[in-house]
């Protein structure tokens, strides 16, 4: 599921008069509010996350019981070349997708942060790809990218490029093609976050900079960029996690191919787990994904905290 939200400082409710019966009553009522969601959440999210850490140390296929094998799965990962490929591909995808989406969505937000008549229409247009289904857009883009008579290559040839890339059929171009499509799909969402960030910058800051004689570019670097920092931080964290768990689009567009050119971690987990039924080994791969995402989040969080000081 897409995640949008960054932690906010919780405002403490007003202090209540002391009294253990009241406190007990509050605890009870508080739990009744949380429980309908918590039961589902605990059973289907919390517990599976905990089980994951057990499974990764077992050898288990559907038949038979889970057998504790210690670090064996992780030792196998070290020499598993397909795993290395998946890891590298995931990183490669993230390296393309994160900066590209950041740049495009920020650019769109700056462009659309005006009072022009009809600007709301353009925002809607930019956001629209984000809500459409992966399968539909993957199918459409695959056709657009088709090497022989696809519209994209026809366009490139009209521009004078005689030997346009084979896109999803080429080991070199398949991953850039996927990254392009996912940037096209995601940019509207992150644009919206940037747009809201831009709207929150007080107009007086620009006014003051203008009075000081700052030109447009100076105002951008000295007012917009620093004021947008919390938004940029949040968007980067979200984009990073989203990049590392890329899956659906790749599965439908290229199925990891050609060869293993677009095989990514999530898909490798899926293959090992659901196609080859090696639950233990797949869980070990999942732990790697888990650790990467948590590390990235914590790392970015620490950087942000240091700069805040």
């Amino acid at each position: 599921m897409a995640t949008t939200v960054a932690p906010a400082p919780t405002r403490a409710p007003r202090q209540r008069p002391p009294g253990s019966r009241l406190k007990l009553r509050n605890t009870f009522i508080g739990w009744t509010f949380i429980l309908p969601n918590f039961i589902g959440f605990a059973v289907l999210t919390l517990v599976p996350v905990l089980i994951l850490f057990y499974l990764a140390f077992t050898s288990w296929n559907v038949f038979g019981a889970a057998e504790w094998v210690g670090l064996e799965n992780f030792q196998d990962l070290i020499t598993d070349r397909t795993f290395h490929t998946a890891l590298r591909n995931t990183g490669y995808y993230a390296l393309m997708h994160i900066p590209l989406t950041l740049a495009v969505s920020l650019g769109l937000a700056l462009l659309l942060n005006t009072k022009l008549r009809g600007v709301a229409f353009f925002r809607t247009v930019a956001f629209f790809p984000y809500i459409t289904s992966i399968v539909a857009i993957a199918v459409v883009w695959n056709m657009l990218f088709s090497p022989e008579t696809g519209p994209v290559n026809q366009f490139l040839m009209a521009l004078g490029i005689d030997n346009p890339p084979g896109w999803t059929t080429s080991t070199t171009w398949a991953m850039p093609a996927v990254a392009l499509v996912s940037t096209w799909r995601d940019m509207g969402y992150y644009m919206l976050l940037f747009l809201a960030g831009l709207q929150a910058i007080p107009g007086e800051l620009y006014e003051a900079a203008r009075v000081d004689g700052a030109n447009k570019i100076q105002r951008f670097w000295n007012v917009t960029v620093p004021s947008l920092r919390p938004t940029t931080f949040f968007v980067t964290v979200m984009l990073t996690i989203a990049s590392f768990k890329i899956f659906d689009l790749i599965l439908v567009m290229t199925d990891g191919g050609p060869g293993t050119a677009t095989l990514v971690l999530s898909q490798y987990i899926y293959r090992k787990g659901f196609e080859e039924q090696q639950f233990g080994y797949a869980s070990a791969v999942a732990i790697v994904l888990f650790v990467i995402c948590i590390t990235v989040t914590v790392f970015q969080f620490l950087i942000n905290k240091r700069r805040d000081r």
Partner: protein
Amino acid sequence: MATLTLDRPQAATPRPERDARRRRSVLGTIVLYVVLIAAAAVIMLPFFWMVTSSLKTNNQVFTVPIQWFPDPVVWSNYVDIWAKSDMSTWLRNTLILSVTVTFLQVFTGSFAAYGFSKMRFPGRDVLFLAYIGTIAVPWQAYMIPQFILMSRFGLSNTLWAIIALQAFGAFGVFLMKQYYDSIPEELSEAARIDGLSEYSIWRRIVLPLSGPAVATLTLLTFVNTWNDYLGPLIYLRDRDLWTIQIGLKTFVSQYNAEYALIMTGSVLSVLPIAIIFMLGQRYFVQGIATAGLKG
């Protein structure tokens, strides 16, 4: 087309200065419009191509040079696809799932959010941290243990699996709590003095005030469930349980040369979402803006 609005009221600039700036920027405005229209055209081009291709004959889809408009317009694609695929089953299943999941997510999410935002009890913050923590964990990391659990419960290969999977996400709780935190505590306090129970405060005061957040959560959940591919792929094996995404993907591999029909199916899979989006997007944008930016 409905439009996204997201503007803070702007302080009026003194008139003479504004006029001067306006005169200076007529050219700028024209350039900006040209850029915007070009960008919008590029963004929408794949959709345009999808819709026009769905109205072409099969061999008109890939022609050199591109044929931009279908001639003749083949409306029959939209009739044929119902006969060639189980489109109605897929749409029905997807609709059932999306509505149920959305209802549960919004109801349990906003209810729990009240507990986290407006009630005070021991362990509350630790519990909430567990919710937030799991948001950063990609689903792909724990989909295997989850699958094993669901199978043990006998839920795999039923629509219940997808409902259970999607309905109790941490995300809904989080989004609603963000919004509730911005509702002044004094309101609930006044209601308490008037003798309202906590449940009544939630239903009669806090919930009605959180329209944009509810709209955002509703739309995001609906869209996510509608568009989910991996969940149904793992859990729904029987053909009559398939959702539109699984169905469409299978249709594509089965009729891989029927380009026009494939585009027709794609249009049908996007259409309901497009309609829902246009009905609710005004609140939606506001909600995302509030939820996303407190960090």
